[in-house]
């Protein structure tokens, strides 16, 4: 490697002694604190030895140690402040908007292979529709518009031109395939000023947005409407921390200055109006349920009460098959591979489908495409 008469390898030769002494003092001082932490941790564990041999004890201690580390929270804030000051960004995952609005960076991503990805997604929708039809049911899609398109006036960075066209692309194709759907883009655009249809600090719609979607579903599909009466009652408005706020790690004063703070949320609960009992509690209800709702976190999370508003709008009970954090393809895939598809009473399958799913990379869903 180095010839005998070559220059000596250029590496650090010396460092001031005070640096070594300071290093020892620092690690010794914090080391003593750490020993006390470890003793406290061990005292709280009954089966320490068996956990040690499984390799779990020290990892658990490490996790706890990191979480309780004395400078952790101040460090998170200071780095958040620095990041915001230099780049006007939150942590990777959020896009900061104006007036306290936050958007998911998923909504700003346009896959390079958008066309071929959409071919695959459309193929999946067709296969799903076909399988649902073969089971004697009818598919109705409810494409949920994108938050940063509806509320682009709050976006510091406008969405790409393509994103404004996603609804129309999908609707045109669904029309061509003869698949029923609800045009939420138009109604959301019409009502966005009068009502806040998406949560300011969350990726999801608000209860107002969920209710509007349910009402539009009933308007578009009057044949689905039943004869029961459901009502929804509201709770007191409470402070709500949206999922996107966890990506905003500046200090409280900076967050307050830019309004990246909790918002208030009025939650709703729906029930059969006749006896005022909560949903599903009527022992004497013998009507069979003919409608299933398949969806994502827009359906699964109770905070926006979408299933409740659908019951109210359609005046009947429904079954719900929704999973969080997996997207509409996985939730439909699970439904189609489950026993629920064989339920002969079900005649209609409503599929809540966030439009932003059309911007997903193929690698995230292609393993789900075989039905």
């Amino acid at each position, binding site marked *: *490697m*180095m010839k005998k008469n*070559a*220059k000596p*390898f*250029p*590496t*650090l*030769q*010396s*460092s*001031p*002694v*005070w*640096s*070594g*002494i*300071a*290093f*020892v003092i620092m*690690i*010794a001082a*914090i*080391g*003593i604190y*750490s*020993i006390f*932490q*470890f003793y406290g941790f061990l005292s709280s564990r009954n089966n320490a030895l068996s956990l040690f*041999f*499984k*390799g779990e004890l*020290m*990892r658990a201690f*490490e996790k706890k*140690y*990191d979480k309780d580390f004395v*400078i*952790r929270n101040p*460090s998170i804030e*200071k780095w*958040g402040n620095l990041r915001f000051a*230099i*780049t006007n*960004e939150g942590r*990777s995952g959020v*896009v900061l908007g104006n007036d306290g609005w936050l958007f998911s*960076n998923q909504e700003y*991503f*346009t*896959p*390079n*292979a958008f066309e*071929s*990805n959409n071919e695959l997604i459309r193929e999946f929708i067709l296969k799903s529709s076909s399988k649902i039809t073969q089971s004697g049911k009818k598919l109705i899609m409810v494409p949920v518009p994108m938050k940063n398109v509806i509320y682009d006036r709050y976006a510091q960075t406008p969405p*790409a031109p393509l994103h404004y066209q996603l609804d129309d692309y999908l609707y045109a194709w669904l029309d061509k395939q003869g698949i029923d759907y609800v045009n939420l883009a138009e109604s959301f655009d019409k009502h966005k000023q009068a009502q806040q249809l998406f949560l300011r600090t969350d990726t999801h719609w608000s209860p107002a947005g969920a209710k509007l979607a349910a009402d539009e579903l009933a308007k578009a599909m009057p044949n689905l409407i039943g004869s029961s009466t459901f009502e929804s009652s509201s709770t007191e408005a409470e402070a709500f921390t949206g999922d996107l706020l966890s990506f905003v*790690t500046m200090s409280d004063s900076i967050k307050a200055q830019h309004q990246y703070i909790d918002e208030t949320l009025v939650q709703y609960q729906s029930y059969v109006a006749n006896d005022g009992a909560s949903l599903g509690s009527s022992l004497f209800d013998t009507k069979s349920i003919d409608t299933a709702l398949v969806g994502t976190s827009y359906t699964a999370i109770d905070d926006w009460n979408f299933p409740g508003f659908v019951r109210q709008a359609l005046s009947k009970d429904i079954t719900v098959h929704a999973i969080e954090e997996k997207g509409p393809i996985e939730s439909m895939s699970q439904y189609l591979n489950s026993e629920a598809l064989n339920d002969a009473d079900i005649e209609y399958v409503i599929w809540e489908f966030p439009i932003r799913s059309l911007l997903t*990379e*193929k690698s*995230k869903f292609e393993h789900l495409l075989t039905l």
Partner: protein
Amino acid sequence: MVFSSNIFLFFFLPIFLGIYYLMPFKYKSYAIVFGSYTFYAWWRPDFMLLFLAVTVWSHFWALKTVQYLDSNPKRAKYTLWISIIGNLSTLVYFKYANFGVDTFSNLIGLYGLEHISIEQIILPLGISFYIFQCISYNLDIYQKDATPAKKFIDFAAYISLFPQLIAGPILRYKNMQAQFEYRKHTWELFSLGASRFMIGFIMKVLIADQLAVYQTYTLTTDSMSFSESLVANSATFMQLYFDFAGYACMAIGLGLMMGFRFAENFDHPYMAQSTTEFWKRWHMTLSDFLKNYITKPFLKCGVGLYSAIFLTMFISGIWHGASFAFICFGIYFGITMIIERMTNSVTTVESPYSFISNMRTHLLVVYCMPLFWTSDIVHSLEIYTGMLGMNGFGNLDNLLTVCSIESFIIFIIGYIWVFSTGAMNKRYYLGKTENYQTKNLSNIQTVIIWGLFLLAITRLAANSFSPFLYFQF
């Protein structure tokens, strides 16, 4: 447990150094073994037995080799081969069994035969490194470059030495032997070690960890455009460098704190002007190992120079990972190094600087990297379609959206770091200066390092866990 973690810096290290310095010299190896096995057990206590078994096996056969070395050279050679085969078999089993069975299964599947499979074998941490060191020990003893450790505990300490245990530098026993018999412990040496450790910590936490998003982007984004793929792969390579070189720096620093002088592992690889020179600046202890134990024996056996180079890099590829992508990774460099020899474009650290040669080499290295981090040929080819412009020139909008402007700024800072320090390095080798960055740290430079080190500690606290890339080798 990794060096760039709160638990290592503020729990393990002070306790270990406390015990180490309390021990008289003759017992320091016991402290090293105790500390190193505890460090290893943090990952999986059950694999300590394998570790111990490999240590005992290598030392036993080394003693046998020495016993017959002069009286019965043939028998001595047998004992050497037994030790090497035992160690290599262990490595092959843990690292390559799954790959081998899967490949064989796919092959017989082509002929309609039933697929076979075995349960997934867990790859023990650092196995490639400590097995290589054991092999080097037995070979050095056979070649009379070293004598067996007088005490088993010294050999066990050499193999288990935690600073280099899981990701090198690969230490040759002949270079370490004397240090186990005598080494100085002074404040000057300790301070030097502390400074090396802090510099490595800064490299890892402030630069490498912030560029991890680019690797995720490279691996999860389909049909990247030319501009995206070039930036993402360049940033991922930079992450690899700062991660690995930072780790090596910390390992060397920890060694110095214990009075050991380890071999250096990096010498500004961004300044390389040929891939031959790149492998003399990157993971130098691996290159040294391969040259001494693979290339030279091949040449001695009459294998031609080009074949020896090709085979060495082929083996290097296999060492890096159990997949065809890693084999192609090795072959790629084998071919470039042969072409360089054929075209007389091999350079050394002392070759005059040419910007074009430097950039050409940098691109050659970056273009090889998809094979390295996907470890999958098909996935690599998908990335190459982007790197070869088949998906259009594109722009960086998606990249900046997902990876953030913050990490892009860190990427630029990384380039400034490597080329400014690299320029000084080049001037030093060309004889234009006796100095290079941080040769003898001044008080002001030390204060700056301390400032960045404390900043890195806060960044670590803010970001929590950050894994090393070279763990599973």
